[in-house]
């Protein structure tokens, strides 16, 4: 059992959870993820490690309430326990040797962008962070991202924070103004990452994206998380989750995310029915 030590709402849909998991924290690195199972009936669901503290033996994840498991997680409180919490899984993001990097986070993706920016800053890189949200009320981690970046640009789809547009608009502005990045790291919904890759391809900037496909075990066993990269089948759980965004077969990746959509609704529905009983 893994105890929830801290829970904090970041906005109406997103919350942070710090969990006691010393063995996971011990070897965790940015870019890696954990798999949790909330109870005996639960699914195994992957979450990217948003922060970790080896000394305290804690791992922080940031969760958006979307499906059954995330809804159940949102109902847990500090002091409650999660049945299973395994990791760290996947390959850490390659950050060594980078000098000037643009880290782009879309929505919940900022939770994952944060540890990367933090590590890059620690390694002495010049870090620009571009964060995009639907609207002002959904902005998360503004202070944290500010602390680990040389420049922080926050944009909203509806312009409610004063800057209107997608993260790609802000990226283009940076590039047009003459900024030269060695690397762009993009984390967010698949269409956003694809759009970023389309921009960086023009400028020939190496772009790392973080894939978050459906998976069960997270150790290379089920093959459910397969991603086509440069024409080859890769498993996001062991070969990734980071890949060269210019080599990803985006259409297949987007299609595969819809595999269990119908079932997710059923599961969530059952969850709601259970709540009303």
């Amino acid at each position, binding site marked *: 059992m893994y105890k929830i030590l801290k829970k904090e709402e970041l906005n109406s849909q997103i919350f942070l959870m710090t969990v006691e998991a010393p063995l996971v924290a011990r070897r965790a690195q940015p870019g890696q993820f954990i798999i949790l199972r909330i109870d005996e009936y639960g699914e195994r669901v992957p979450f990217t490690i948003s922060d970790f503290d080896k000394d305290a033996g804690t791992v922080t994840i940031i969760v958006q309430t979307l499906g059954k498991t995330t809804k159940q997680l949102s109902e847990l409180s500090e002091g409650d326990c999660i049945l299973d919490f395994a990791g760290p899984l996947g390959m850490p993001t390659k950050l060594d040797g980078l000098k000037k990097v643009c880290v782009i986070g879309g929505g919940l993706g900022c939770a994952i962008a944060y540890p990367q920016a933090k590590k890059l800053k620690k390694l002495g890189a010049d870090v620009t962070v571009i964060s995009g949200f639907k609207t002002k009320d959904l902005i998360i981690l503004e202070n944290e991202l500010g602390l680990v970046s040389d420049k922080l640009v926050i944009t909203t789809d509806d312009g409610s924070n004063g800057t209107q547009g997608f993260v790609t608009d802000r990226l283009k502005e940076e590039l047009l103004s003459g900024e030269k990045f060695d690397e762009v790291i993009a984390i967010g919904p698949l269409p956003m990452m694809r759009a970023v890759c389309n921009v960086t391809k023009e400028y020939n900037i190496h772009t790392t994206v973080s894939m978050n496909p459906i998976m069960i075990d997270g150790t290379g*066993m089920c*093959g459910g998380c397969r991603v086509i990269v440069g024409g080859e089948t890769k498993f996001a759980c*062991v070969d990734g989750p980071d890949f060269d965004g210019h080599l990803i077969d985006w259409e297949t990746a987007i299609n595969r995310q819809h595999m269990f959509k119908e079932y997710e609704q059923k*599961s969530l529905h059952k969850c709601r029915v259970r709540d009303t009983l």
Partner: protein
Amino acid sequence: MPNMSLKKNPMPEQAADVRNKNFFEVTCGYTEEMALDEAQRCLNCKNPACMEGCPVAVKIPDFIRLILDRDFEGAYKKITETNSLPAVCGRVCPQERQCESRCVRGIKGESVAIGRLERFVADRHLQSGDTAIDIPKPNGKKVAVIGSGPSGLTAAGDLAKLGYDVTIYEAFHTAGGVLMYGIPEFRLPKDIVQKEIDKLVKMGVKIETNVIIGKTILVDELFDEFGYDAVYIGTGAGLPSFMGIEGEALNGVYSANEFLTRINLMKGYKFPEYDTPVYVGKNVAVFGGGNVAMDAARSAKRLGAENVYIIYRRGKEELPARFEEVMHAEEEGIIFMLLKNPTRFIGDEKGKLTGVELISMKLDEPDEGGRRKPVPIEGSNEIVDIDTAIVSIGQTPNPLIKKTTDGLETNKRGCIVTDESGATSKPLVYAGGDVVTGAATVILAMGAGKTAAKAIDEKLR
């Protein structure tokens, strides 16, 4: 007087058109009467060939004698002298290729039903509730066992009996390995596996789930930081192979591992009571001819698929699955499309699987190994409508440990290289089971666990 009937006592089982709609165990096991009658078919040979066919040399005629004496507990003890998981082996061993293939009675008629008798004895023991266990005296040495499948469980059990402080590390949330995630409930009930695991725990074996060796803890750290004196790697062959044909990433194409894990480990067949869904369409094709393929096909049928095909590139004679599984699959309405090979999957504009193109095969002359190579017949292509495909063409060892352990030699198939005792190229690290042999059987994995436990004891003693 021995029973000279040429036929085995048939195994009572659920009717095919009933069982193909549920996940309860297919076979029901011998009654005492049947077991006694079958035991009388054993001739108690002076030189029992059956034992030579058993990878762990179960004392077969001896335990059958004890059945005849109605000393069922004695028979159980006799089996467990060399086989720690008889309830499992009685159900899943390919007896027709091992013990029973050597039985003298098989020359004229059917062999003695050794597997069914083994299961009878083991089930009898489990039902008797006699779970008294001798707690061994600790010898002060620590061994880590990586993986809780048949190989790891056997090694852990044998080492614990010798007084070692044993911890099993398991990546999943449940111990049991392939016995839990791979083999379906209708062939190997999970409570039987759990009872075997509980027995180890009672003996003092510790089980740490959710620990992925090679990620959470490295093999070297097990020695340096965690203070183990030896390590046994029994991580199996968990990495699914795909066919590398067009369309394999379409929605509706599973690896058998994913399909079976969703059903068995995650209890997807009870969705939405359990949260993990498993999609099964109307027309399901399973590619491959082994036990895993049979398990996947029969599971798909039970989940409501109308047509389930086994597509295999060789003929019926060559199917690698246990004979009984093929027979059960046929009875349950699985359609065998033999001498066919897929060339590509076909999908719609949303990336959903709609069909598969097959090509007919013929078998060449036998090669040096005696195996006949399938070759495609040009122009014989056909398209079959399917909405679910399950690729079951084999598994290879997971590379996580290999990649993170210096000095651990592996071969080109990714299997760990060991000597006969299970010792790897790395001092005090032993390995056995599928991670060494590539995907094989439960009993071979157990045999390797046994051998390595003995070698570890000799080394550390």
